[in-house]
């Protein structure tokens, strides 16, 4: 990996400073719906929800990409599968039918989310098992190609809308909560985001996480101490795919719509952009990156429909001239974050 790879020094900021920073971030995210209401911008709540959902997807991708060194260009596939799991279960529920002849539908979030995670994990297992037989540039091409294959699969799936996608009339239900309410849904997403980041934080610091980081740095060394990389990489890839599936399931609920667009290869690219904008291989980086990209998109589309002509050069400059993305920048400015290249 190049020199902008993952820094793993003890953070320059003392642990206490980091804890305070995290608390402030948590407080700000919890207070956000009330603040935007107070300043008369309630439309910002859905925007923040989108940031959170993408943050889950990007953070999951980051486990494979940043911590495991697996440059997957196909994570939109798992994102989309998560979305379709929700969509198909809802449609089956609405039609009072059986999916594949034996699976009853449901509109309960407590069932649809685990189902989405499971199905995405299953696909990640199959795609990962095949793709991880290669590495480097082949791995990038192959993950992209498999995602494209699933994209075409859903395009041809006329029973579930094909090209046009399908609408989900109501968001999934959770207890007696009114999930239609934007603030309620925001808090559901916030809780899940916190959970995902907590889990990823534990994984990265665990024995498994150490092995994964070791594999990223030097596979030959890992073999010499008796560790065969394949299983660990596959496990990380599957966990990563499950996280993306969860994000997709939430996105399907948020939009009340799924379409093959969720699996489009540019979506994989966007997820990677979020990761690199935030800082590859940093824990909170993906949240920053997701925020940066979603906000950038919202602001720029306000100016011009050709907003990508602004995004392109920005991305190019970030890749060529910054080390460690936004969180690297923050760290260098002494504002916390983990990385200090």
């Amino acid at each position, binding site marked *: 990996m190049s020199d902008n790879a993952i820094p793993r020094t003890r953070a320059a900021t003392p642990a206490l400073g980091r804890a305070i920073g995290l608390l402030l971030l948590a407080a700000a995210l919890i207070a956000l719906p009330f603040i935007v209401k107070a300043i008369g911008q309630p439309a910002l709540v859905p925007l923040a929800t989108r940031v959170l959902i993408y943050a889950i997807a990007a953070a999951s991708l980051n486990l494979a*990409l940043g911590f495991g060194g697996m440059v997957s260009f196909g994570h939109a596939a798992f994102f989309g599968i998560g979305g379709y799991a929700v969509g198909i279960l809802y449609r089956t529920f609405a039609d009072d039918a059986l999916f594949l002849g034996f699976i009853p539908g449901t509109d309960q979030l407590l069932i649809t989310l685990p189902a989405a995670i499971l199905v995405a994990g299953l696909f990640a297992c199959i795609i990962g098992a095949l793709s991880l037989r290669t590495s480097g540039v082949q791995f990038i091409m192959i993950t992209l190609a498999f995602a*494209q294959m699933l994209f075409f699969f859903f395009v041809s799936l006329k029973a579930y809308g094909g090209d046009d996608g399908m609408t989900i009339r109501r968001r999934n239900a959770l207890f007696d909560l009114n999930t239609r309410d934007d603030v309620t849904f925001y808090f559901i997403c916030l809780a899940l985001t916190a959970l995902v980041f907590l889990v990823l934080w534990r994984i990265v610091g665990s024995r498994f996480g150490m092995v994964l980081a070791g594999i990223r740095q030097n596979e030959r060394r890992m073999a010499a101490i008796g560790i065969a990389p394949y299983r660990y990489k596959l496990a990380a890839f599957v966990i990563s795919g499950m996280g993306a599936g969860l994000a997709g399931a939430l996105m399907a609920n948020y939009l009340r719509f799924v379409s093959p667009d969720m699996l489009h290869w540019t979506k994989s*690219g966007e997820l990677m952009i979020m990761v690199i904008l935030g800082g590859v291989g940093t824990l909170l980086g993906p949240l920053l990156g997701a925020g940066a990209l979603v906000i950038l998109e919202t602001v720029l589309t306000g100016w011009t429909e050709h907003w990508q002509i602004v995004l*392109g*050069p920005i991305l190019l400059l970030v890749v060529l001239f910054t080390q460690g993305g936004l969180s690297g920048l923050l760290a260098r400015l002494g504002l916390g974050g983990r990385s200090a290249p």
Partner: protein
Amino acid sequence: MTLVLEQLLNGLQFGVMLFLLAAGLTLIFGIMGVINLAHGSLYMVGAYASAFVAAQTGSVWLALLGGLAAAAIIGMVMELVVLRRLYARDHLDQVLATFALILIFNQSVTLLFGRQPLFVSVPPALNGSVQLLPGLTYPVYRLAIIAVGLLVALGLYLLINRTRIGMLVRAGATHREMVRALGVDIRLLYTAVFGLGALLAGLAGLMAGPILAVQVGMGEQILIMTFVVVVIGGVGSIRGAFFGALIVGLVDTSLRAFMPGLLRQVMAGPEADALGAGLASMGIYLLMAIVLLVRPKGLFPAHV
């Protein structure tokens, strides 16, 4: 029978187009170690430039020249300005930087030419069809594409295996320092190789113009198929790119042509068509998965 032959020719023609792209992609990767997503953009540049010149001047030759020159020049500028900085970087940086280039290219072309696809007519000299066999007539233009592709393949083979430049190219991939020690400006060599790859992509793009619609996004569609070709053939190998391209071209074309028909034997027409089209689109990716299971390094891995 004639239908099968016709589809085989279609497959060959598509395969040859894929080869033009795959050759450049695999050469650039094999020698510079760079994965260039914007390779498809050069294909688009070739198509648009040629269509533009044709519309302005009405001359086929100028259109050809314009498409080739635009692709090669933009390709070399791209190498000088961006790609050169990426040789020492990891693949992730390369992917993202060239992804950024795609966004820039696509939006620039949209701004210049709009979202409506351009339609390009077949050059008058190549219009019409010839009778190849009794009952089998085939468009001259498509035959010309096949001929050009095969000629380019032959030319590349000779260039790589029989010339000093080819020797340097082969040596440059494995022994960078040695080539530099021989007094060769390796940076110039890289730019030249990149230019060649861009030229081939542009050639494929401008030839595709009259067959497909010239539109934004055409580059990415074919780029991903080119990846499949490169993976099946073996990364870094021109021979692999050639056979991989033909295999993918033939398989994809035959599946698209025959899959719905086969399915119609067992299910209703419209559903068979939809499912058949879907399965056909997935076919080459399944093929890739099978090849990966059997030979993870592709069918013709590069020796280096």
